[in-house]
């Protein structure tokens, strides 16, 4: 493994974006967003120099615990792909993953993640943490990362269903991880700090719900790809003041836009439900395309529609465990696909007044794609036409963007005819 740390590219890109922003060219929430990204990665870059302990972790991981223990987190998937996208080095990282012997059927974000560690693009963590939330790829990625970095690791076994016994098991798993972290970092768990984080998580949930309510308005004041920023805030700063500040600002801006009847795009002709993630390397292209057709994504039930919940700060670890069951990814993609889950997706279509649904059929994500037929049948029964678009969320070589654009264009024309 070589040392070729490229995390700085994220910090530099954020700086450039912020520097180029003229007054009024970016909403204040966007400025806060890029400041948030920059802060997270600056801390990671300077961790060794500052004598901080770094824990790498996979997606949907309770980073709240790391913050409460004063440990610097490194979100492996997000960090890998921000680096790759800012530098345009997706192919390099995927080829490094292949070099390790990882088959092409393993999802590209995880092949690239291993490749990023092999190439030394990411800093060597002190420990690796991972869980099976959300799929076999997350469950299996940790051991290879441990080997590549010659570091210890801890696997959190996330039970499949949501029973009392399973929550207790998860709490016990988290306790085991805390003991592991205390042993390796020398840092003690600060339970008061974790309780404060849980209290802020309630605030974060409330803000997210308010934002979602605003997105129900016609026209929606929220931009199509804005939900990825909401996700990033929770991925990087769950229950942290940075996320609260960002979401508060965003909520206020949306309220203001709504009161002025401002739309997210130029016009709002089609309100869409987005299922799974669009190709993140195509964001600008898709934004342009959506604007051209007057399409706006107003709800993303696999990622951004939080269940009603109130966490108990006096039981912080149980609350962190419960949160992992409440996130939509867990309910819609990981857990059993019950009738209630299907109903929740269909009800979302009604609540958000959507005209159509787009399922981004990321071929690397087996368990998401296996729901296409089920959701399509359920949405069609509610007169919501759904289009599934084959894609890869990070690898631009799989489908030419023109092919994707053509499919979307035809779909919007179909909606026009309805």
């Amino acid at each position: 493994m070589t040392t070729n740390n490229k995390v700085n590219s994220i910090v530099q890109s954020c700086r450039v974006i912020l520097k180029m922003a003229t007054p009024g060219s970016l909403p204040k929430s966007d400025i806060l967003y890029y400041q948030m990204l920059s802060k997270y990665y600056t801390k990671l870059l300077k961790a060794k120099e500052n004598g901080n302990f770094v824990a790498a972790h996979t997606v949907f991981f309770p980073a709240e615990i790391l913050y409460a223990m004063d440990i610097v987190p490194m979100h492996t998937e997000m960090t890998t792909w921000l680096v790759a996208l800012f530098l345009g080095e997706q192919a390099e990282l995927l080829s490094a993953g292949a070099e390790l012997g990882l088959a092409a059927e393993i999802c590209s974000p995880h092949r690239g993640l291993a490749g990023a560690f092999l190439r030394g693009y990411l800093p060597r963590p002190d420990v690796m943490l991972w869980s099976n939330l959300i799929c076999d790829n997350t469950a299996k990625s940790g051991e290879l990362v441990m080997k590549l970095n010659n570091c210890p690791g801890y696997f959190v076994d996330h039970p499949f269903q949501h029973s009392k016994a399973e929550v207790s098991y998860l709490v016990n798993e988290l306790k085991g991880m805390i003991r592991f972290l205390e042993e390796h970092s020398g840092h003690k768990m600060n339970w008061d700090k974790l309780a404060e984080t849980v209290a802020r998580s309630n605030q974060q949930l409330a803000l997210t719900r308010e934002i979602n309510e605003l997105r129900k308005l016609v026209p929606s004041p929220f931009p199509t790809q804005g939900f990825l920023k909401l996700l990033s805030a929770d991925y990087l700063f769950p229950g942290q003041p940075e996320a609260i500040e960002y979401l508060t600002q965003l909520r206020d801006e949306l309220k203001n836009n709504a009161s002025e009847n401002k739309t997210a795009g130029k016009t709002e002709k089609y309100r869409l439900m987005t299922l799974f993630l669009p190709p993140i390397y195509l964001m600008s292209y898709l934004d342009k395309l959506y604007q051209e057709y007057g399409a706006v994504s107003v709800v993303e039930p696999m990622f951004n529609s939080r269940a009603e919940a109130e966490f108990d700060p006096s039981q912080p670890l149980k609350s962190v465990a419960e949160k992992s069951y409440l996130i939509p990814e867990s309910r819609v993609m990981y857990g059993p696909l019950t009738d209630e889950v299907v109903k929740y997706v269909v009800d979302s279509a009604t609540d958000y007044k959507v005209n159509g649904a787009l399922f981004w059929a990321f071929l690397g994500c087996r368990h998401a794609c296996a729901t296409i037929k089920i959701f399509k049948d359920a949405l069609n029964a509610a007169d919501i036409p759904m289009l599934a678009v084959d894609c890869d969320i990070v690898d631009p070589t799989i489908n030419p963007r023109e092919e994707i654009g053509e499919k979307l264009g035809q779909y919007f024309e179909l909606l026009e005819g309805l």
Partner: protein
Amino acid sequence: MTVSTETSMINLPALEYFRSVNSTFPKNQEILDFKEKGKKVFGWLCTYVPEEVIIAAGALPVRITGYGRETDLADGNAYLYINNCSFSRSCLQRGLRGDYSFLDGVVGGSTCDGARRLFDAWRRYINTPFYQVLTVPRKTTDEAQALYLDQVISFKQNLEEFLGLQITETALLQAIEVCNETRDLLKKLYELRKRPEPPINGAQTLEVLTASFRMPKVNFNQKLKILLNELEHSKVVYNGRARLMVVGSVLDNPEFIKLIEETGGLVVTDELCTSTRYWSDPVIIQEGESAISAIARRYLTNFPCARMYPSEERFDRILALCRDFRVDGVLSQIIRYCVPYAHDFPLLNDKLKTAGIPVLDLDVEYGTSGSGQIRTRVQAFLEMMEAKK
């Protein structure tokens, strides 16, 4: 008589019987006879579902498998999309087309993404009266065992409610006895394969194994005892250019092993959920322990699937099998989109290479009998091993 590794027409009536059980599955005579008596049949998905509980309820556990041959999976593709493993798509397609219409229930485990989604689609689109999916922890700690026991108890209770009966401790003990006898007999079959020239080849062994989960265990045990006796007295033995082990994804098509053996290799052991991982560990009741607790412990701590953590135990057991069966080379066959095994491959490959055991990795589709390309690659692998000798 020493024969090449090619499956011959040697007269082994018990083996012929197992072949007929497989060739007529799912609606084979054994299952039809069982249903005829008014008894229930439950399909299970994945080796983490405890068969003993079903047997103790007086029902027949039958493993759900897909088409044991290459076939168009149009329905499977439509319902599970093309990027789920061909095993889950093939199983679902059989379900959708009514091949498993005789099932009274389906029981699965949260073992991998493909199995979970297969279960979701089955529940939604196929009308089977009883469903349960068990949460299967990925660890084997005391807490994990307690959680899994909780799941198995809930399965037992749901089954009792559905069937309107009580599954007694005595019935569970009897079921353990029957299943342990199956395991013991299969172990004896594998012991024969340790010989320098075994009386049974790899393809034939897989035919025995697949029959073991497609008929009542009591009947299977009787037939296997006959086969073991026939093999013990058989004058036919098999040898090959190299002693091979097959590892990786689910495999229940003997034709695939036959293709490998036609190239001159002899498959002497495996690490497959349809074979060694299915029978390897018996249920052992510790002092003062209930039968259900012993069953749950055995299923969770059995020879692990690639889904389990840590992977070391699986790797260590593979290496031990390589030593015990004097394996010259390992064939890793991974079904496309079978992520747990694909992720483990780089780590397992390193371990085996360090132990001086060459590895051939094959990307396959479930049900394949092997293509010309696979034949060529296996031949080249055998030649490479011979050149190194």
